[in-house]
Each structure stands twice: as C-alpha cells, then as structure tokens.
C-alpha cells in the first residue's frame, strides 16, 4: 500500500518534470499562433536549444550561460521563420517543416563529439524551505529545479498577459483579424515578429531543460518528437496558457509512467506505452485540421495566413 502511494507520488512528480519542456514549448507556440503565425519548427528549435544549451554549458561550466545560449538560439531560429513567413510570405507549413528538418540535422552534426560527455553543471533540485517539507504537496510541487518553478510562474503570467492586458488584446487581435488591427494602428508585422521570436525563445528554453535538467547530457535526437507534441498540445489547450499546463503535465505523466511502470516489470510491451503520446498527437492534429472543427474550438481566425495591407481581403 505504502509502496503504491510512493509510486504514484513519484510518477506525479515525474509528470511535472517531464511536462516542463512541453509546457515551455507549448506556451511559446501559443504566443506565435495567437499572433496568427503557425510555426511547425518547434521540434527544430527545441533540439537546437537542447544542443546549444549543453554545448555552452560544457564550454563554460555554467548551466545558466547554456540556458541563455539556448534561448537565443531558439529565438534566432524563430526569427528565420518570421522572415520567411511574415516578410517573404512563404508558406508557413513549408517554412516550419524546413526548420525542423534543418534543426534536427544540424544538431546531429554539431553534437557528434558531445555524445557521452558528462554535464559539468545542471539545474538541480532546490527544495523550497517550509513548503518543501509538506506531506504529499512538498515532494510533488516544491522539490524541483528552478526552471520548474519558473514554468509555474510563466503559465499564469502568460494567461494574464493574454487576456487581461492591452498588449494581450493587441496580440489576439492580430491573430484574429490583422486587417482590423492594422486599421486601428496596431503594427501587425511588428507584433508577429515579436511573438514568433518569443515562441522560439521558449522552445529553446524547453529544449535546454531536457539537456540540462531532465536528462543531463547530449544524445542525438534527444527531444524525441516533443516539439510535435507541443504543437498538438496547443490545439488540445485551445490556445489557452492555463489549459496548456494541464495538457503538458498529462503528457509528462504518460512519459513518467513509462519509466516507472517499466521499472516494476509489467507485461505491457514498452513500445506500446512509448507510442501513446505520438498516437494522441496524430489524432489531435488530424481532427484539428478540419476547418469547421478549428473554428468551433476557437483557433485564431487568421492562423497561417500572411497579411499585406494593400492586398485584397
């Protein structure tokens, strides 16, 4: 009995840890999509974030510098997408896919020598005084590394920004009706750049979390499709940062459960468990690409559409 309780607690705490990179990336993509830009390059930005974060940490011996590098690299790749899709009006799906392929390939190439290198510095668990000693809640919520705490703050903050403030109003307007926003003096191009950049930074941060906290070190393809899961989570969360938290931890839970359940030696084949997040991702994406469904669940109306002022609407 005691053992089962502890197992459940471990899985739940693991769910939060494993969900954290998903949460960062999902929040980032929510920002970009709320501004009307679909960025399928999340996987590419995450893996480049994971690599650059680890690489710089190895050089400097300080995980914070690695984190900063990852954020900048993610943001820069986001900017590439912004230039291609906003300024050059390239097809957003194609541009995003290209970035994912590019990021995956480049990280694999640049990371060859880093495989197996031990991490000189990582983000370690910081037990919060008093709160960390609470039964159940303590180990579940208050015994994590600092980036998890950051994500706890970030999601509600993003929600507040989006729905309760003027910048949030402008962000949503740009994604719903860029022509209206433009006519009212809101800079559509400026805001789209800003939020695609922000989205890239958050994806980079999510990637770095994997290589500097979740499973410190570098392994080829170590993001393992989490970028795609994040894109599905955006839809699952219906573009709301609050629900993104629920979704991210749910998926984190599946991942954490895999480890633990495999540890207990059950009969369920492991590849079956490994499959579940991806199957779910595919289902969500297939359903959500239907126009009517998208409209009903509140997708930003101008998502994926380039805007130009003198173009006929």
């Amino acid at each position, binding site marked *: 009995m005691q053992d089962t309780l502890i197992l459940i607690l471990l899985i739940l705490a693991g769910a939060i840890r494993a969900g954290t990179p998903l949460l960062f990336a999902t929040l980032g993509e929510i920002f970009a999509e709320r501004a009307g830009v679909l960025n399928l390059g999340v996987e590419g930005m995450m893996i480049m974030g994971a690599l650059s974060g680890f690489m710089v940490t190895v050089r400097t011996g300080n995980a914070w510098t690695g984190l900063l590098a990852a954020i900048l690299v993610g943001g820069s790749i986001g900017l590439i997408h912004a230039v291609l899709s906003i300024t050059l009006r390239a097809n957003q799906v194609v541009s995003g896919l290209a970035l994912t392929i590019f990021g995956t390939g480049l990280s694999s190439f640049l990371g060859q020598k880093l495989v197996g290198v031990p991490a000189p510095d990582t983000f370690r668990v910081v037990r919060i005084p008093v709160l960390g000693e609470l039964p159940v809640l303590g180990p579940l919520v208050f015994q994590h590394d600092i980036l998890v705490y950051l994500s706890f703050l970030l999601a509600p903050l993003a929600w507040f920004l989006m729905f*309760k*403030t*003027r*910048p*949030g*109003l*402008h962000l*949503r*307007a740009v994604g*719903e*009706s860029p*022509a*209206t*926003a*433009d*006519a*009212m*003096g*809101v800079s559509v191009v400026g805001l789209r750049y800003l939020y695609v950049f922000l989205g890239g930074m958050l994806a980079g941060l999510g990637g770095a979390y994997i290589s500097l906290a979740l499973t410190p070190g570098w392994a080829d393809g170590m993001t393992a499709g989490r970028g795609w899961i994040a894109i599905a989570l955006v839809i699952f969360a219906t573009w709301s940062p609050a629900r993104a938290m629920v979704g991210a931890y749910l998926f984190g839970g599946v991942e954490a459960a895999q480890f633990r359940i495999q540890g207990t030696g059950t009969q369920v084949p492991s590849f079956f468990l490994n499959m579940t997040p991806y199957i779910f991702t595919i289902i969500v994406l297939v359903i959500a690409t239907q126009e*009517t469904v998208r*409209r*009903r669940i*509140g997708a930003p*109306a101008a998502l994926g559409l380039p805007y130009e*002022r*003198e173009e006929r*609407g």
Partner: protein
Amino acid sequence: MTSAVPSVQMLVITKRFPGVLANDHIDFSANAGEIHALLGENGAGKSTLMNILSGLYHPDQGDIHIHGRRVALRSPRDAISLGIGMVHQHFMLVEPHTVAENVTLGLDEPRFLLNSGQIEQKIAALSEKYGLKVDPEARIWQLSVGEQQRVEIIKMLYRNADILILDEPTAVLTPQEARELFATLKRMAAEGHTIIFITHKLDEVMAISDRITVLRKGRVVSTVFTSATSKQELARMMVGREVFFQVTKSPWRGGQAVLRVEAARALSDKGLPALKGVSFAVHEGEILGVAGVAGNGQRELAEAITGLRPLTSGEVYLCDRRITNQNPRQILDQKVSHIPEDRLGMGLIPNLSLSDNLILKGYFAPPLGRGPFLDQKAIDAHCRELISRFEVMAPGPDSSVKLLSGGNLQRLLLAREISCCPRLMVAVHPTRGLDVGATEAVHKMLLEQREEGAAILLISEDLDELLSLSDRVAVLYEGEIMGIVPAQGAQVEEIGLMMAGTKRARPAEVAA
C-alpha cells in the same frame, strides 16, 4: 461652424493598382460641419481614395492637407492621431472580441491593464449622446450588422475623430436603420464634424448630403451643391450618359407553381439553424424577390434549392416532383439555373477559358460530348454563338475567364445559365458590383426569361431592384419569411419593418 480652411484637402492624388488606375489626379476637399457625399459607380475609386485618407493605402502621388496643414500619412496610426476615422465597407471588427475590446483596440490608453468598467462607461456616454445603442459587453459575432456598424462609429468617436468617413454604410441596413444613421450623422455634422459619406445610391445622396463629389473611372467629374443638382444630373455624371430608372414589364399572366418549398430547414456553415421552416412557391413567368439584410438565410436558401446544402427537414418540389436533397447535377438536369453570389468562386472557374466555362453544364452529353470525348467543333460553334448573343466582350473563346471585368463575367455566367432554357432560375445578387450598363443588361435578361415563362427566385439586397423586377417580394429575417407582398404598390416602409423582424399577417399570399 464652417471655417475658411477646408478640414480635408486632397490634391492630385494618384493611385495605381496592377492593371488599374484607381485614382487619377483626384482633387477633393471637405469642410467641417458638412456632410460630403462621394458618389460613383462600383470601381470608380471611392474606397481607394478614402483608404488613402485613412492611411491604409499609400498614394503614388499627391498631397494631403488636414485643417490646412500638409501631412504625411504613413499608416492608419498617423491618420487616427490627426482625427481621421473610417468605417470600412467590410467592417473592421474582431469578431470573437467584445464591443469594449474592439473600441479600445490600438489605443495607448489603458496603458497595461484592461479596465473594462471605465471603458464601458465612456462607451455608454457616447451611445447616449449620439443615439448609438449597443451593449459594450456583447461579443461582435452576437450583434446584428446594424449594431456592428454602430460599434464602428463609436470606435471613431471614442478616438475623438472629427473627420468621419463612412464607406457605403447603408448597404447593410434596413431603410429604418438607414434613417437613424442619417439622423446621427446630421447631429455629428451640426457639432462640427466633417462627414464623408461614400455611396452609389442617388436617393441617399439627395437625402443627406450638403455637397457631392462625383467620381467616374478614377477621376473627379465634378463637385456640386446638393441643393443645386438633381438625381438625373447626378446619374448622368456618374455613368457618363443618360440613364433611365424605369424598368417596364408586362403584368404576370398566371401559371403553374414551378418551385415549391415547404417548411424548409437547413444549417449554416457554422452549424447553426439558418433556415427555420421556410415555405413559398414561385410560378411560371413570375419573379419572386427575396429581400432581407445580408446573412439572414438568403445564401442558404439558394443553396438548399440547388442541392448544394442539405435540408435537415422540409421539402422542395420542382413542378410537383420532389427534388429535396437530390445532388446538384440531378437538380440542374431538370432545367434549373443557378446564378450564385460568388461569381468567380462558385459560378465560373477563373483559370479556364470562356468556352470551357460555357460547357460546364453540358459537356458530358450530346451535342457537346461524344462518349468520353468532347466534340470540339460543336463546342466552338456553341460558344461563339453564346458569346456574340450575350455580348460578352473578350478577346476570344479561348482566353481565360479571370481576365474579364465584372459585367462581362456576369454576362458569361448568364449565357451559360440561360442557354439551357431554364424552368427555374435562382439568381443571387445578380447585379452586385456591376456598373449601370451591365446592371441594365442583367435586368433585361432576367425579364426576358420571365417572358419566356421561367420561374425566377431573385435574391438581392437592393430593394429598388427587387421592387422593379419582382412580381412579389418575400422578406427573410433570421431564416424565416416575415411576409410576402405584391411588388406593385408595396410600401418600402412595410418591407423595412419586416427586414427588421416584424411579422406580417399575410392575407395577400398569391395562390396559384
């Protein structure tokens, strides 16, 4: 109120779009306290000129002076800060957002936190002052088109705009709503606002404006005082020739019901009820007009009859044969013609040639088709005949349809739809966006078909058109028929009330 300096002065404005000179050296000026109408046919360049004044488009050439000072309008932001506000033809509103959110969009105040209480108070004060009733907490998609327009106007007043541009504001209003709008505009002009009112409707211009600038093909024809001109003169300036307003048609001779719709229900694209039990009949040699503010089920009705939208319940009969939920091909094969609202999207295939478009309804059967093959010779003869009979101006039958002007597109579409000798024609906004000449031609073709004995369901937003062409007029409101009245002697007032949702006791239903 009127000062010596015009509040708006636009000098030699030129704007070119790929292939069109939309504004050609236009001079325009308007004074504070006046309602200045900008009159012209579709495509004359009215919206373009005002989009330039509101900072949305950049002129290729020309100067703009506001209150006597030369200004550079780089973006709508610049225009707004100079007190210029525009209510666009297609509303600029964020549908899922509330009225208050839309009104404050783009402002620097509030700085960070959205304080809805204060904003709503200010909106309420403006509504009160100008008689623009609207609920600040409502979401745009919940509002009627008339209410949405009020939001647009409040949006401008909230920014203290003293130069107000309205682009074809009455197109979406019932006659009563239009009158309320005019009252509001007059009040604003009396307070010293400059009102620029874009329209192509002569009656409106005469009713509301102080001065009128007429545009034709991107140029200014003249600027005149309303008190010193007449409808006839304006029409001549607008079109460039004499225009006759009267359509002559013989009285209905009576005949069998061709189309019968019984208690039809259907859903809109969003899955909401769009038709809520619609019943009516159209008879041989009769034109039944369908009036109503846009979005009250007109499109769904046309699509339900032509097989493009399933009925959830109810029946459709063609000459007493049930055609409910048959597929479009089955229905069209029974001599039904459809002139859809969206000419290039639904009526014609832009990238195909004239002749390919003309044979779309008959390529699979003799004389145009032979088994799996097309009979090029027959097709060629058929198409040349149609193109000359319907006076479609085009380089040739093989040129691509997307190069045609609006009027010629409609002629081509009518050529195809009339050449199959229809028993029933469903025509949706057949003259929308056409110039006067093309409109006259379309009217003539519809009346000819009526003479030939076709039953015609004519859906239009233009009440004048409906009243002059139709034998009877049905009014749709939120998917229901509010009443059906004989067109001759119909009261615009009464139809307007029905368009706004007042049901009519219907003794006047003409039986077959």
